[in-house]
């Protein structure tokens, strides 16, 4: 795993060999820019990256532009001519109570799931890191939920959460606890989906944090020990601050994925009971694929993209602040 500074550089888009000029030295900056333009290695780097850039543009930028265009129309196979409606689809989404509810459910799901995954992921990573033996084997086993095929996993959860004959309610009945209708109750359906997401994706955060922990020099802990710092103090004053860049990256990646969660909702609840587990992604799927309302569906998907971009910007700016603080 790279050290935090290089990680920062990767996340914020800088490149190797690029040294920002001191502020105010315009002539030096101009000369450096000219030198860079004439640098044959820079040209070669661009040429090597060109095919990948073209492929990325074709498979990401072009579809995005097509989707954006669709979101401004009333495209539907039942409409024999497609008309431009401007921001009409977006306006109807804002007025649609079920879309607003989907936005709220998406935010709740993402915030709660990622927060729990982060806490558990850090705890498990720290515990694994402190093991003298068996850590690598345990780490591999803990990756299984993340590695298994998602749809197959969701069907297994559907069986286990069956209110009548599922193993979870069976175990609860053995110990005399209530056996709720996990997937059919308004109170339990969303928490059940969050719990499944935590089970499946905590290993992802654990892997990133384990990498971060391995990059922290042990000398710092030894010095802290000499100074009389206890375990918790070491964790709060050394481990956590040095892990912050990794935590930010883990939160960023997990949040974007959590916003897009679909398979568990499709298999387990179909967005129900009622619409209590309908997220923006599921709403967009229903509109575009079930109802063939391509304009509305892509507009909902674009809204989700905007939410993801805003979230990413916030997290990346925090990451940059972390780098500036450390450099200062």
């Amino acid at each position, binding site marked *: 795993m790279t050290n935090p500074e290089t990680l920062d550089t990767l996340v914020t888009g800088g490149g190797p060999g690029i040294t920002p000029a001191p502020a105010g030295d315009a002539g030096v900056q101009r000369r450096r820019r000219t030198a860079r333009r004439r640098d044959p290695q820079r040209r070669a780097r661009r040429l090597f990256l060109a095919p990948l850039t073209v492929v990325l543009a074709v498979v990401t930028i072009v579809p995005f532009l097509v989707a954006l265009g669709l979101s401004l129309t009333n495209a539907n196979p*039942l409409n024999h001519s497609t008309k431009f409606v401007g921001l009409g689809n977006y306006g109807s989404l804002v007025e649609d109570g079920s879309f607003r509810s989907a936005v709220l459910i998406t935010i709740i799901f993402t915030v709660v799931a990622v927060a729990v995954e982060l806490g558990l992921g850090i705890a498990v990573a720290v515990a694994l890191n402190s093991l003298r033996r068996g850590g690598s084997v345990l780490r591999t086993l803990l990756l299984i939920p993340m590695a298994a095929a998602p749809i197959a996993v969701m069907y297994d959860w559907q069986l286990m959460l069956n209110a*009548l*004959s599922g193993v979870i*309610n069976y175990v609860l009945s053995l110990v005399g606890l209530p056996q709720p209708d996990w*997937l059919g109750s308004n109170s339990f359906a969303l928490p059940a989906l969050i719990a499944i997401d935590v089970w499946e994706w905590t290993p992802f955060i654990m892997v990133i944090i384990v990498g971060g922990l391995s990059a922290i020099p042990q000398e710092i802990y030894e010095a802290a020990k000499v100074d009389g710092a206890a375990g918790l103090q070491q964790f709060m004053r050394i481990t956590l601050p040095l892990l912050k860049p990794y935590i930010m990256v883990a939160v960023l990646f997990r949040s974007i994925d959590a916003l897009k969660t679909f398979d568990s909702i499709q298999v387990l609840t179909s967005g*129900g009971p*009622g619409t209590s587990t309908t997220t923006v992604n599921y709403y967009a799927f229903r509109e575009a694929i079930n109802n063939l309302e391509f304009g509305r569906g892509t507009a909902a998907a674009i809204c989700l993209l905007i939410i993801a971009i805003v979230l990413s910007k916030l997290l990346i700016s925090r990451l940059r602040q972390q780098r500036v603080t450390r450099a200062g």
Partner: protein
Amino acid sequence: MTVVNRRRFLQGTGAAGLGLAFSGLISACASTSSALTTTKAASTGEFSAANIDWKKFAGTSLTFAASANPWVTAIQSQIPTFQKLTGINLSIQVLGEDEFVTKLPLTLTAGSKSPEVFMVNQAGQAVGARWVASIDTFLNDASLTDLSWYDPDDFFSSARSFAVTGGTQWLMPISAEVQVLYARSDLVKSAPKTFSDLTRAAAAAQSAGKNVAGLGMRASADPSETPWPFGGFVFSYGGFFIDSSGKPAFDSPAAIAAMESYTNLLKQYGPKGVTSWGWLQNQQAMEQGEIAMWADSTSFASTLLDPTQARYAKQTVVYPFPAQNGVSVPNVWFWTVGINNKADIQQQQAAWLFVQWATSKPTYAAIAASTGTAPRASAWSTSGISSKLGPSVTSTIHDALFSAQSQQMALAWNDPKWSQIATYVAEAVNSVVAGSSSAAAAAKSLQSNALSVTA
């Protein structure tokens, strides 16, 4: 409250494991037994009697897109006969129903010429989007069709009229299902004739049975699940989903009464967790005897009555759907096939030869034993279906199909916006059963949502 004990858990896990193995392969209205039944092949001689040049399109290649279904499984066994008869190369692409209903509209929206023949899940959508060619064009073409041999009038009238929109037949029915009431004869001694009888029977069965729910029905928020059985209640109460003028009618007194009846039965006598149940969960529960009754499609009869697949097969009986004020309108479903309107004319005509062959009397006589149903009346007088279901059940189902009214379901199914409206129907029923809304409020909200879509 139903208690989960070790025995029921083990039973449920075993049944659920079977369900998991098959859940990706079978459609929402399919039985799990059809793949295991051997079909006899129809001989080419039976088709030579038709005044049709079967070899007219020899050498042509066709693709048939299908949703996993007992009829599809049976037809696959007959494909060598078709290929020998016509010289047409036919490939069948089969997907689970969830994948099929998602993938096919996208393929056809892109204007693809293939598949040339496909099963149709939403007639209103297929006709409204101009994905299908008129079947009347081919039926009335003497160079392609021998009407006296094909005998379109042999189809149940409800089956033929199911796929007629604006006076034009756009699709051909390939299977026939009607809503019936499955019951455990040890807990439900006689057929409930009315919905009041049904309520009393559910209450009595739940009291008498050990850890048995009185009645199971679909209640999940999935639009491909719950609206269908709910429709039988609405139609029997005298209501409509979409009335004859094309307007949603969910807030009529009849529809609201049906919503109350359906949801109250499930809230009081339904199994635990029924709000997330579709046909698969209900079928498993009926097989294991965990529900005393189940109101659903005849397509499950062959599995529920098979002792090798259902623990309570010997105690399971099939009763006619109950009535309200002397009116019983069980819902019907006919899977249909259509011909791709974008395909070349020659491909369309070759596709019609396949459809004509696949829905002919000899083919249904050959496959009836494995499908356990047919949309043709003549198939029910052969020994095939009776050998699979038994004479009594065969008679019950035949009578139900013969007298079925498809107009109410057809009005909804042929509406171009039905797929969107069905989503609201499923959500409404699901929310009432889950306790987050009253029946009247849900019906009114449903009506408002449906009107916004059809406006």
